[in-house]
């Protein structure tokens, strides 16, 4: 069994490339006066969130890695390290990413970690770096367990996860409108991912893909970007602070305040953690479903159009 296997730490090596591409995108936007927007405090917040993500990975990465190595010690399977195995691992890890990302929008406990990535009202390459500080606490490392148990070495799985993150960097831009049809059909693209960052009722809970958009098409969550409806970026209720600590922890604080409310049943308290964002015990808040239904009540002409299918 391959115990000692190392791959380059691709995400850290990509940092200078990230900085260079941000400068190129900024230059393009300033010179052409189109293709996106930048604002100092927003970009600074995103970059600090990115740095904090790297720091939290250094500090807490041992938790996931230790878990994966424990699984590796007990699995009798070892698929080896051939190029084909790495490619298969990359594809399956992207399927893993799709589900983790979907859970990240549909389970409030996981959303509490992921929400900060959606907290910018801008959509540019710095937004890609606005990453979580609290991913370890979501326990979504469990979703990677089948890959390790199937015989993919933990170092390979993490390497593929790093490549996945690097791929997703460049799709956080408005500078690229649409790519060739064959590419848009298979791959996640700036257009598809803009939809994912939309707070428009139509675009909520759509396009969870990391690299391959086919997962959204397979699992019924694909919504194409509509030329008739510009994406409005940010959260349903936008933050009123750029403080990175508040950006990182605000939904965790929200969960805590909801859970300790007096007079709730234990089921209610649990539901504040595991139901979709916006769930409340008295129905006083809006989930993405209720937002979509309210939109359709005002705009019945949108029924059965992309993003509003299967809603009555």
């Amino acid at each position: 069994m391959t115990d000692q296997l190392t791959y380059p730490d691709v995400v850290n090596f990509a940092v200078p490339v990230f900085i260079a591409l941000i400068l190129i995108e900024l230059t393009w936007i300033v010179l052409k006066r189109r293709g996106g927007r930048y604002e100092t405090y927003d970009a600074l917040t995103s970059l600090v969130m990115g740095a904090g993500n790297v720091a939290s990975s250094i500090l807490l990465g041992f938790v996931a890695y230790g878990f994966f190595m424990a699984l590796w010690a007990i699995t009798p399977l070892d698929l080896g390290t051939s190029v084909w195995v790495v490619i298969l691992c990359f594809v399956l890890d992207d399927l893993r990413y799709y589900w983790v990302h979907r859970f990240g929008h549909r389970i409030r406990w996981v959303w509490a970690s992921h929400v900060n990535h959606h907290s910018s009202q801008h959509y540019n390459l710095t937004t890609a770096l606005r990453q979580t500080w609290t991913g370890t606490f979501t326990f979504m490392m469990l979703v990677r367990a089948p890959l390790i148990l199937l015989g993919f070495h933990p170092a390979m799985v993490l390497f593929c996860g790093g490549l996945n993150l690097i791929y997703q960097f460049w799709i956080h831009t408005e500078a690229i409108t649409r790519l060739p049809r064959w590419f848009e059909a298979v791959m996640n693209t700036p257009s598809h991912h803009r939809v994912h960052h939309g707070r428009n009722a139509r675009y909520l809970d759509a396009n969870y893909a990391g690299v391959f958009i086919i997962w959204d098409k397979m699992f019924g969550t694909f919504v194409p970007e509509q030329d008739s409806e510009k994406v409005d970026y940010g959260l349903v209720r936008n933050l009123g602070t750029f403080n990175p600590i508040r950006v990182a922890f605000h939904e965790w604080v929200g969960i805590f305040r909801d859970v300790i409310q007096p007079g709730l049943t234990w089921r209610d308290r649990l539901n504040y953690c595991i139901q979709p964002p916006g769930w409340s015990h008295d129905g006083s808040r809006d989930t993405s479903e209720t937002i979509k239904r309210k939109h359709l009540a005002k705009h019945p002409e949108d029924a059965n159009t992309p993003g509003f299918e299967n809603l009555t």
Partner: protein
Amino acid sequence: MPLSILLPMVVLGIAGIAVLLHLLGLSKPATFQDEAAARRAWLREFPEDTPTRVILSQDRHAALVETPQGPGVVWPMGADTTARYLDGAQIKQTETGLRITLPDYTAPRITLTLDPEEARHWPGLMEARR
């Protein structure tokens, strides 16, 4: 990558980009062209709570909004905006306007730059309808 390289690169990269953006003039706060723009900004956050009155600040950077559910404010978040109701707000007059403290972890402090007349007048409007 060794931390001795990664750390300076990240710090210098962040600082450099922030300084560059500022020098390019990209730190200006959002401005509302008119009351209708402030109303749209409010409705963007609270689509069901139609304002009955919108009072734009003299510098057009903020607006006091009255709704049947109570008063609120719309203010800039960089080049964009956000809005909040004033439930539980503590309002203090400052040399440059008002400082509003909210019991809201996502918007704990709102600093409004108002002219002296507005700074005297707005707290009354905010308090009267809460």
